[in-house]
C-alpha cells in the first residue's frame, strides 16, 4: 500500500494496514491533511483544521503501537462535527454566537474516541446549531456536495458527510435530531448511523432539542460504523439522558445472513412525494435484501404524515429553552455598547444567531407561550405518542423498516432557502425515528440523476446490531458504498 492511496481506504482496512506495519499513523495523517489542503477550498467542509495536534496524536499512536499498547482505533483519523466540545480547540456549532468559543473540556464522544487511539483531523462545518437540512444556515458558509459542487451535501452534518464522501476523512462524527446524520449520508453516498436515543452520551454535545438529539457516525461502510459505535456507545453518568444498557459487540454479528429477516415496507414512503428514480433505486435495494433471504411485509404507520408538523413544534420548543443559555455574559457573542441589561441580551442574541435559528427560537417561544401551550406543545407530544405507538405495533411484526432516506437526491444550493416548509419536508422519512427514539441508518443504494440515493433502515430501540448487520450484508452484495465522486478518487 503506497501512501498515495491511503485516503481511499475505510477505517477497517486502515486499521489492518497500521497493524501490519504497511504504513504509520503519521504517514496516514499526513496524507489526509494533504487531502484537506487540496480539496477543502472548494468544499468548505471544515471550520477548523487541527493539523499540529493531529500529527502529535499520530506520533503518540505510533509510539504506543511500538510498545504494543494499542487501542482499537489506534492511529485512525477522523473528523468531529463542530457541535462536539473539544478541549482547547475552537467549537463554534456553525454560529457567529460561538465564533470565538474555545471549549474548556472534551465531549464524552471525543474523549472516548481519542481514548481508543483515534486522531482528530479537524472540526466540520454544519448548519448553525444543527438547525437545517442543507448546511446553508452555517455562519461559515455552505458546504458543497463533492458529487456536484453546485449542490448541497444535506445537513445538518454536511461537513462530516462531505469530508467522508470526498475521501478526506475515513469517518466522521455527526448528530441527528430529525435526520441530520442520515439525510446528508444519503445525499453524499455515505453510510450514516443514528443510534437509539440515549445510546451514545451527549455530554459536551451542544444541545438543540434534548428529547430528540443523538450522536452518531458517518463512515464508508456499515462495518466501519459498527467499529466506531462500539467505542462511542455506553452509559455516561455526566449525561442525564444516557441509558444504562449493555453495549454488545457490534462487529461480532455482522457476518450472519439475512435469512428470515422480516423487513417492513411503509406504503406512504412510496407516495407521490418521492422522486421516481430515487424510488426505483430503493425498490432495487429491497429486492437485493429479499434475494438474501429477507421477507418483505407491508406495515402501516397511520400517523406518519403528522411527523414533520409534530417535530416543528417539539424541536423549536426545546431549542428556545436550550438556546436561552446564550446570554452574552458567560460565553459567546456580546453586542457592543449595550444601553442596559435587556438591550445587551436582545442585541447579543439578535447579532449572534442567524435567521433560521431565530425562526426556531421564535416558533418555540410562541408554541410554549401562555394560551398556546395546550394547542401546540401538549398536542404535539400527544401526536408524538401516537407515532411512537405506530412504530411499536409495526415492530411486533417486522425486524427492520426499510424505505428511502430522503425524497429526492441532492438539491441545488439556494433552491430551498426561500420557503422553510419545503426545506423541513426533506426530513419527512427520517423524523419519525427521532420522535420515537429509534435507531436508523442510511446506506448508499444507487443513483438518481447521477447523484447518490440512500436506503433508510429503522429498527426497534437498541436494534443497532440488526441494522448494522442488514446494512453490512447488503454492502457485501453491492458496491454502491464504494463509489467515489469524480475528482476525489
Amino acid at each position, binding site marked *: 500500500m503506497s501512501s498515495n492511496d491511503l485516503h481511499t481506504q475505510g477505517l477497517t482496512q486502515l486499521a489492518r494496514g497500521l497493524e501490519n506495519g504497511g504504513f504509520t499513523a503519521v504517514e496516514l495523517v499526513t496524507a489526509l491533511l494533504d487531502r484537506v489542503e487540496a480539496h477543502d477550498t472548494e468544499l468548505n467542509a471544515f471550520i477548523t483544521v487541527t493539523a499540529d495536534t493531529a500529527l502529535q496524536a499520530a506520533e503518540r499512536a505510533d509510539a504506543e503501537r511500538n510498545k504494543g499498547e494499542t487501542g482499537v482505533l489506534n492511529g485512525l483519523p477522523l473528523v468531529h462535527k463542530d457541535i462536539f466540545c473539544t478541549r482547547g480547540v475552537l467549537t463554534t456549532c456553525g454560529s457567529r454566537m460561538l465564533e*470565538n*468559543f*474555545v471549549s*474548556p473540556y472534551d465531549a464524552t464522544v471525543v474523549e472516548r474516541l481519542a481514548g481508543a487511539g483515534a486522531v482528530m483531523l479537524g472540526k466540520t462545518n454544519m448548519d448553525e446549531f444543527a438547525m437545517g437540512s442543507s448546511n446553508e444556515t452555517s455562519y461559515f458558509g455552505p458546504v458543497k456536495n463533492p458529487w456536484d459542487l453546485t449542490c448541497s451535501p444535506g445537513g445538518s452534518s454536511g461537513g462530516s458527510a462531505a469530508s467522508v464522501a470526498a475521501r478526506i476523512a475515513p469517518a466522521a462524527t455527526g448528530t441527528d435530531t430529525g435526520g441530520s446524520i442520515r439525510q446528508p449520508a444519503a445525499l453524499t453516498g455515505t453510510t450514516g448511523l443514528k443510534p*437509539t*436515543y*440515549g445510546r451514545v452520551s451527549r455530554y459536551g454535545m451542544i444541545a438543540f432539542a434534548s*428529547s430528540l438529539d443523538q450522536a452518531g457516525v458517518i463512515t464508508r461502510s456499515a462495518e466501519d460504523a459498527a467499529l466506531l459505535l462500539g467505542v462511542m456507545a455506553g452509559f455516561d*453518568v455526566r449525561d*442525564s439522558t444516557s*441509558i444504562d444498557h449493555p453495549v454488545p459487540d457490534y462487529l461480532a454479528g455482522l457476518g450472519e445472513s439475512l435469512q428470515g429477516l422480516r423487513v417492513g415496507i411503509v406504503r406512504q414512503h412510496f407516495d407521490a412525494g418521492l422522486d421516481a428514480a430515487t424510488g426505483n433505486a430503493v425498490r432495487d435495494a429491497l429486492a437485493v435484501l429479499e434475494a438474501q433471504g429477507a421477507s418483505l411485509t407491508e406495515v402501516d404507520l397511520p400517523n406518519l404524515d*403528522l411527523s414533520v*408538523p*409534530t417535530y*416543528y*413544534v417539539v424541536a423549536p420548543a426545546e431549542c*428556545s429553552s436550550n438556546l*436561552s443559555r446564550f446570554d*452574552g*455574559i*458567560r*460565553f*459567546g*457573542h*456580546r453586542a457592543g455598547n*449595550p*444601553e*442596559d*441589561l*435587556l*438591550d445587551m*441580551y*436582545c442585541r447579543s*442574541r*439578535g*447579532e449572534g*444567531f442567524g*435567521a433560521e435559528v*431565530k*425562526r426556531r*427560537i*421564535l*416558533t418555540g*417561544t*410562541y408554541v410554549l*407561550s401562555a394560551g398556546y401551550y395546550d394547542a401546540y406543545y*401538549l*398536542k*404535539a*407530544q*400527544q*401526536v408524538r*405518542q*401516537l407515532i411512537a405507538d405506530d412504530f411499536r405495533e409495526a415492530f411486533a411484526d417486522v425486524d427492520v423498516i426499510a424505505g428511502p432516506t430522503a425524497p429526492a437526491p441532492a438539491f441545488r444550493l439556494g433552491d430551498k432557502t426561500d*420557503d*422553510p*416548509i419545503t426545506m*423541513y419536508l426533506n426530513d419527512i422519512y427520517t423524523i419519525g425515528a427521532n420522535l*420515537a*427514539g429509534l435507531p436508523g441508518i442510511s446506506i448508499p443504494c444507487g443513483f438518481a440523476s447521477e447523484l447518490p440515493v440512500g436506503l433508510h433502515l429503522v429498527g426497534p430501540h437498541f436494534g443497532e446490531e440488526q441494522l448494522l448487520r442488514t446494512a453490512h450484508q447488503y454492502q457485501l452484495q453491492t458496491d454502491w458504498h464504494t463509489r467515489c465522486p469524480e475528482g476525489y478518487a
Partner: protein
Amino acid sequence: MSLEKDQVQHIAMLARLRVGDDEIADTVDKLSRIVDFVDQLSQADTTDVVPMAHPLDAAQRLRPDVVTETDERDEFQENAPAVSDGFYLVPKVIE
C-alpha cells in the same frame, strides 16, 4: 398571515431576541407559514392520549446530593466577554 407584526415583536421580546427592522417582514411571513403548517396537528384525534414524556419511557435519573464538581472558574471565564476579579461584568442594573 396568521401572525401579526406586533405579535412577533412580543414573542421576540419574550425570547430576548432583537429582530431588526430589515428582518421583521420576512420573519412575520416565514413564522406565519410555520404556524399554518403545524396547525394541521389540530386535526389529529388525541382523545385520552397521554402526552409523551420520554421516548423510551425512562424516568429521570437522580444522583446523591454531593459536591462532584471542582472549581474551574478561571478556566471557564476565559470564554467570558467581560470579567473582573472573578466576576462577570454586565451593564449597570441598579441605579
